[in-house]
């Protein structure tokens, strides 16, 4: 949680950040992964810690040193390249996904950079008869102001399940 107060919803910086997340979700739902990669900074860190069930007061609820994702740009590019091959069986036929992005709060970071918190609900349907998957998560993003507009420099995905109920994470959150 960020201590500072979020920008007012009418603040142009908040509106730009919100629009960035919605546009990003549209690219992911359209499976335009090459387009999505262009939104990422060269030094991107894309993290998704493993959430664990701990006693109230334990002081932690993620695993130390283990995530579902801990990616740099090389790893994300490889994942995208793979989905573009003819042999990525788990996404052929592809998932139908819908990234619902809400509860957006924007905070001023250093310079023109923005820290943006959002809630994500990913609906994922595959095949004709399988039950669909839902993944609920909170995200904290660092959006960097560049000459080309906002770019994603860091994303931490805090998933709301300790045991994922989806076949794999062949999708981006």
């Amino acid at each position, binding site marked *: 949680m960020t201590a500072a107060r979020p920008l007012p919803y009418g603040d142009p910086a908040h509106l730009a950040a919100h629009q960035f997340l919605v546009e990003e979700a549209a690219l992911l739902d359209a499976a335009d992964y090459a387009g999505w990669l262009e939104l990422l900074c060269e030094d991107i860190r894309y993290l*998704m810690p*493993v959430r*664990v*069930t*701990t*006693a109230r007061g*334990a002081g932690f609820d993620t*695993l*130390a*040193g*283990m*995530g*579902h*994702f*801990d*990616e*740099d740009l*090389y*790893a994300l590019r*490889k*994942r995208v*390249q*793979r989905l573009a*091959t*003819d*042999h*990525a*069986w*788990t*996404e052929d036929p592809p998932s139908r996904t819908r990234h619902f992005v809400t509860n957006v709060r924007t905070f001023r970071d250093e310079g023109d950079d923005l820290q943006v918190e959002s809630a994500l609900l990913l609906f994922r349907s595959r095949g004709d008869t*399988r039950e669909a998957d839902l993944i609920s998560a909170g995200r904290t993003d660092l959006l960097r102001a560049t000459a080309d507009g906002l770019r994603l420099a860091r994303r931490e995905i805090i998933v709301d399940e*300790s*045991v*994922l*109920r*989806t*076949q*794999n*994470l*062949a999708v981006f959150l």
Partner: protein
Amino acid sequence: MIDLAAIVSQVRRGMIPAHVYADLEIFAAERDRLFARTWVFLAHESEIPEPGDYVVRRVLADSFIVARDEAGLVRVMFNMCLHRGMQVCRAEMGNASHFRCPYHAWTYRNDGRLAGLPFHQEAYGGEDGFPRAGQSLLPAPSMGTYNGLIFISLDPGAPALSDYLGDFAFYLDFYTRQSPAGVELRGPQRWRVKANWKIGAENFAGDSYHTPHTHASVVDIGLFREPKASKRIQGALYQAGPGAGTTYKLPPAGNEHSGFADQLRYVGYPDAMIPVVAATWSDRQRALVADSGFMPSAATLFPNLSFVHNWPQIDDAGTVVPFISLRQWQPVSERETEVLSWFAVDAAAPGDFKRKSYQAYLMCFGSSGMFEQDDVENWVSITDMAAGSMARRLNLNSRMGLTSEGKPVKPPLAAFAGPGVAYQGFGEYGQRHWLSQWSDHLERDAR
């Protein structure tokens, strides 16, 4: 009613009645005959390094607390209160000196002994009505460790773990003992897949045949130095004790003296680690890698613990880095499995190596791994297909590597340094080895 004897006799000739991958009665038989007896992995000592550290793990529906007590001993306790049966510890992990049942506050030390219960005098008349001495959460009926791997058996008469592991212990060392410091496990990632638990266990036991096609995509994108996955056919498949596994054939080493170091360097181990590994492994273990030229890759220890060792390129410069993963196929139902996947690394390895090896693991295996994604796709589909009526008319051909008379198509490798039997090339030897143990269990009486 299923005819278990008929099913087992088909399985023993390498023809698997397809419905066993989605059959409620088979699942019940596996629970009562197999998991009621066999050694099952629960946790690694590195997950609970300090007194009071604990993790909660299951064997099917049975929940166990795996804790390090105040004296530093590892304890495995059935996680059910002696009084009314509440699950005593409901967290997955943490540190505690005591576990207190939420229902009536019966409280247990982290070695399982009952420490106290409210109103002992008033409600029970003190020690006369309820003698506290000797009251303890039920300990696991049998428990054993090897290289810090903690196993239990629900059978109090189980053979000693070391007897059970037998010749497979030789291969376990490749994954869990690269230095005297041993291995450290991180994780697990946990996720549930709509697949029967046996399929993954069989796959890791010997299915090198799926690699060129199932995993074509990771080769397409240049994640590996080798341009073709078809070289997988040159690897040796071994069966030893309760385990079986696959290896990769390494390119010839520089010369006979530098062989071992060359082979480890080839798969990306840093020079700082190689002399330690060499001093830790036996002559015979080094010879498997150096003289025979085989590097262990996937393996399964019966029934549901698998291992993988591979060495992708982790950056555009082509830096090859190896990783190790342990994974458990935890049965949930005949059609669902919880996968627990750990990243494992030598505890004494340099920090930089640990970080890179972790990156390599995440790209390849686990909940987001690019290999694992396509594996699970196959396993879910098999389970789906096995649930119908037609699957009861189909015996799946698992006879690869056998002639019509049941003899190996090729003789076992004569010059293979490891224990057990090994064959070079493709063949479902490891899967049949696994299924033969499965058959042994299903033929026994239910416990």
